[in-house]
């Protein structure tokens, strides 16, 4: 508490001459930029995304075309199969990049789904309060306690392995925590005095929600969304690994790893390259998420 007031004084002293202030958001971004791990991770993630999106166009081989001259070829620079080929002579680099693309796409769409469901559910529960809130949150508790992944698997089996269904199913799987976080934050903001101040100056409910509550939810939502992305990448690859996710001819990192681990002893590169991509992807996402959390909520960690 005391320290905070020191800090506050310090800010004032430094910034006395400036005219424009720095919002909490801007200060968080400044802190994030000072976080080396998060910055390196962002660079790696950017490289991965650019590679997944644009590199395949410059490769001599497509991800599903067999190279009849090179079955089970180990990685080599001369042959142009930098990551080697699989049992069907398909270029692993092309396949890995393609798989990364699919994994990222699933992550993006499913995160979006989970944000939409989680934020609206949590915000409604938090804003309504009382019994409605308690009932809604009890429902979330119950959902938490269900073997959700089994239902997703069932859905995938019953309705066919449809990529869009996969997006939705995984999004449905991940919205619970988002809903809890948003609800907690909404409750906290709702009870702050600036909401009462806005009501006292005659603001309508809609204006209060959109001008006063929503902007203050952005921070926690961004943080948790960033932490959700790696979860979803992992879940997708898990389902694909078990054979319930993305199917041939499409491929994802999980599918590639499943294929790779079957041939681990004879064709080790089939495992190591996709595995390295997945781990790198997860690691950079994780560091970015941590960095965002520390930037928005600078506690002593």
């Amino acid at each position, binding site marked *: 508490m005391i320290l905070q007031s020191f800090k506050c004084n310090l800010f004032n002293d430094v910034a006395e001459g400036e005219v424009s202030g720095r919002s909490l958001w801007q200060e968080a971004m400044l802190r994030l930029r000072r976080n080396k791990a998060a910055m390196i991770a962002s660079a790696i993630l950017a490289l991965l995304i650019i590679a997944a999106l644009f590199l395949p166009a410059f490769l001599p081989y497509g991800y599903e075309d067999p190279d009849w001259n090179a079955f089970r070829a180990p990685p080599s620079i001369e042959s142009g199969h930098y990551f080697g080929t699989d049992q069907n002579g398909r270029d692993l680099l092309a396949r890995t990049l393609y798989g990364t693309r699919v994994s990222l796409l699933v992550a993006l769409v499913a995160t979006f789904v989970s944000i939409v469901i989680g934020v609206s559910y949590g915000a409604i529960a938090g804003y309504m309060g009382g019994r409605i809130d308690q009932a809604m949150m009890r429902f979330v508790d119950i959902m938490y*306690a269900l073997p959700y992944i089994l239902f997703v698997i069932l859905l995938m089996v*019953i309705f066919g392995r449809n990529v869009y269904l996969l997006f939705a199913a995984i999004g449905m799987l991940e919205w619970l925590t988002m809903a809890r976080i948003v609800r907690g934050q909404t409750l906290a903001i709702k009870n702050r005095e600036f909401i009462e101040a806005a009501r006292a100056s005659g603001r309508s409910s809609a204006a209060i929600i959109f001008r006063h509550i929503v902007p203050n939810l952005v921070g926690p939502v961004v943080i948790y969304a960033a932490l959700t992305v790696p979860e979803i990448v992992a879940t997708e690859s898990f389902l694909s690994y078990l054979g319930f996710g993305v199917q041939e001819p499409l491929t994802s990192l999980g599918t590639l790893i499943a294929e790779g*681990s079957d041939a681990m002893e004879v064709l080790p590169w089939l495992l190591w390259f996709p595995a390295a991509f997945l781990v790198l992807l997860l690691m950079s996402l994780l560091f970015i998420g941590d960095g965002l959390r520390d930037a928005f909520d600078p506690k002593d960690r």
Partner: protein
Amino acid sequence: MLTYAFKRTLTALPVLWIAITVCFFVLRLAPGGPFDGERPMPPGIKANLDAHYNLDKPLIQQYAIYIGNVLKGDLGPSFTTEDFSVAEQISIGLPYTLILGAAAFVVSILLGVLAGIIGALKRNSWSDHTLAALVLLGLVIPNFLMAPILQLIFGIELDWLPVGGWGDGSLRYLVLPVAVLSFPHIARISRLMRGTMIEVLNSNFIRTARSKGLSSTPIVMRHALRPALMPVMSYLGPAAGYLLTGSLVVEQIFGLPGIGRYFINAALNRDYGMVLGTVIFYMIVILILNLIVDLLYAWLDPRVRAQ
């Protein structure tokens, strides 16, 4: 305390019922059935099979029969494995899944909490950094990748441990599956524990305890541990679900004949009876674990107990 446990159990039962009902109807209403194999069956045989398994009756009646049987403890026949009923198969797979799950659960909590405490107390020391690196590995290497890596290192290269199977059921066969299953949870729990422990150690009542002249062991064990465990507790409920998810993969990779494998095979073959049976089993396990977590909560926080 007992009434509290009883109340929690009562609220869990309707959940179980709703989940079974939803599962039942989703499965039945979905296109395709257990006997839609590669080759279409002669209609007569299919009709016979349908009649045998009550599939020809109206859905509502099938549902009533099923629920009635479940209440008697009969999970019905398996559609693909004719020799065994669902209940019999589950009882065969049960020990493997339970032993694996329970061992992983206990190991995750113990090691996770311990690592978290060490990290918090020795903040920014080499042990904290080493633990952080291990935690990172646990978080970014999915279990289906961790499994082959460990198999390769400890099973094939070093030849210390068996790469799979149950063998004679000795501990050696458990080490790798439990390690793979618990590693990510050790990582998450220790991260959580470290964070909250640091927060708790900065709190006012710890300052009071220090001002009383207590040394660090009683401060951590008597004053800080219980409040710091609270967020870990709330993670344990979902963790039960995650463990189960993990066990699907682990049973598959290590060739353990547990319930996870039944589930996957049943799902792939649309063996309704088996799928429903395994789902019910899993839900009961998870609900029991959640109940235990709730009771632990009450033990940790006198305020919960007072309610």
